[in-house]
């Protein structure tokens, strides 16, 4: 089996491979680009507290980081175990416990302003990412419990520290009785 006798075989394979390769190149060029919908579907699973405890500014950047593969799925304390499991199911990964550096899982909580000590400086209103604080200059402020996500971002700007966080007991788990 001299080298020369293998030549026709090699040439045939090379020709076939080149032809098929060209076909693939042409078809790949026309294929649709990868749509960014995975990030949106990840964002839909996050609790949207916009608290930044996952070291990303808000929930959407964290979702984009997960979609791009830069961030792991266990960095969201307000979401806790439920969010990690949902993300693991979505992305086909194994659920891991919460990352230690982002702190313990945080039960749902709501901010509450002690109206006696509030001086109406209105510094907390722009800090609230979901506009859950109502008030004006020199007027006592208050938190709309239904809108507050418990992100604790209104605590630092408050000069008199009159805001505290109260844990909301779980949504009414009473037995659900139909007719």
């Amino acid at each position, binding site marked *: 089996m001299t080298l020369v006798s293998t030549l026709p075989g090699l040439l045939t394979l090379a020709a076939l491979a080149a032809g098929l390769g060209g076909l693939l190149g042409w078809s790949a060029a026309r294929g649709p680009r990868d749509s960014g919908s995975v990030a949106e579907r990840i964002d839909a699973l996050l609790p949207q507290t916009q608290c930044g405890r996952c070291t990303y500014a808000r929930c959407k950047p964290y979702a984009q980081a997960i979609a791009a593969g830069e961030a792991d799925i266990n960095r969201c304390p307000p979401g806790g175990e*439920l969010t990690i499991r949902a993300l693991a199911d979505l992305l086909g990964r194994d659920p891991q416990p919460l990352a230690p550096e982002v702190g313990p899982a945080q039960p749902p909580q709501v901010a509450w302003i002690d109206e006696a000590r509030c001086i109406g400086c209105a510094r907390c209103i*722009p800090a*609230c990412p979901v*506009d859950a604080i109502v008030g004006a200059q020199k007027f006592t402020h208050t938190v709309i419990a239904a809108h507050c996500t418990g992100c604790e971002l209104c605590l630092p700007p408050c000069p008199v520290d009159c805001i505290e966080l109260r844990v909301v007991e779980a949504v009414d788990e009473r037995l659900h009785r*139909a*007719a």
Partner: protein
Amino acid sequence: MASASAFPAGLRLPAHKSEALAPAIAIAPAPSQAIVSLDQGSGRAALPCVEAGERVRVGTAIGIDPETRNRVLHAPVAGVIRAVEPRVSATGTGHGLCVVIDNDGTGDRDPALEPIDDAERMPAPQWIECLANSGVVGLGGAAFPTAVKLAAALAREATHLVLNGAECEPWICCDDALMRARAPRILLGARLLLRASGAGHCTIAVEDDKPEAIAALKAAFSSQPDERITIRAVPAVYPAGAERQLLTTITGIEVPSGSVPSQSGLLCQNVGTAAAVADFAVTGEPCIRRIVTINGSGVVRPGNLDALIGTPIAELMAHCGGYRGTPERLIAGGPLTGRALPDDGIGLTKAMNCLVAASTLDLAPRGAEMPCIRCGNCANVCPAGLLPQQLQRSAQAGELEQAGAWGLLDCIECACCDYVCPSRIPLTQRFCEAKSALAAREERLRRAGDARWRFERHQARLQADAEAERRAFDEARRRARNDGAS
């Protein structure tokens, strides 16, 4: 477990009703102290509109609906309100707010109450407005405000009213006693409900194992015939009286999953509710009394009582000869869907159609739970056509979407599957917990959606402000340069 062809699934159960139906309906004496719970069993508590120390008369409003501000709860006795405080609750597992009224024995009625003359010719919206403040609710066990249901039926032009006299669950026989004793009042109620809902015709459904009730209804009908009303017997299979199943047995229409009967042009009311509507029209008295069955081998003389709302259960039991020994369990409702009450000091609510002092003879305890062997007994008896074994597996594994796909929200919690399960799995309880978990998860997702929406508006507003500020700054600088130049 043979079952009639008209109703493929379900169970044929021993009735245990004859003993309680023997005596006629007795009028229970007014309690010395009425404990009226603000949550009468529908899960929506009313707001109290009275405080401790106030004097009220029979029929004075003591509770209003938080949203519609209608007077939904009325004082059953005249006297001074001792307190409005949390007491052991009959619906939830903890405590609920109750209005406690000390009966001063005068029994004088609130002067504002007077009978509604020619209620049958009053226009429907006006009549529904009256009912909204009468406190009349569904007496079949759900205690859903009747006026709300009628308004929905009127708005959606319901065509068919079904009066539910099926009463398929063992031990409960308050509707049967009512039909035998007060059939004319039920027919009047039927005419009033037809008027209020604008429905074309009405069917009164009674199980075929209640011949006396059917005879009484037919006799009352012949004395005052009305071509819009028909009386029909349905197969005596539990749960023939479940709303969706009964509507399908009578009209053949299956109310689509996730929708209410009025969206399919149907309206289902309990015969007790019809009688309550008629009582309100005739006497003007709001819904402050109901017929309740006292049954079970743990009470001396089982029977049916016409009792005031708020009467402590202990007094009702005493009126029936007291307990025979100490009963195992006090159940509000029937053996399959009834709720075990922790204390007999709880006041009677509008949702309680039966109180059972169950001794060991009546109960058949569940025993040790074994793994599911997929025998399919539960699927054969499920009236909603579900596969409880698949539902139970996904609910236990915590896969709520999967459980939803298997029909979790179509489960009517009739407990037929529990009854026949050889592995004694608490299926109904597990489905209720899964529903609560599903509802909690939906609530979390809804809140997250709101928070994202508010956050995006917050970002947009900050950007717009910054934009406006920069534009204003540029404008000011250009004007300053022009002024400098000119």
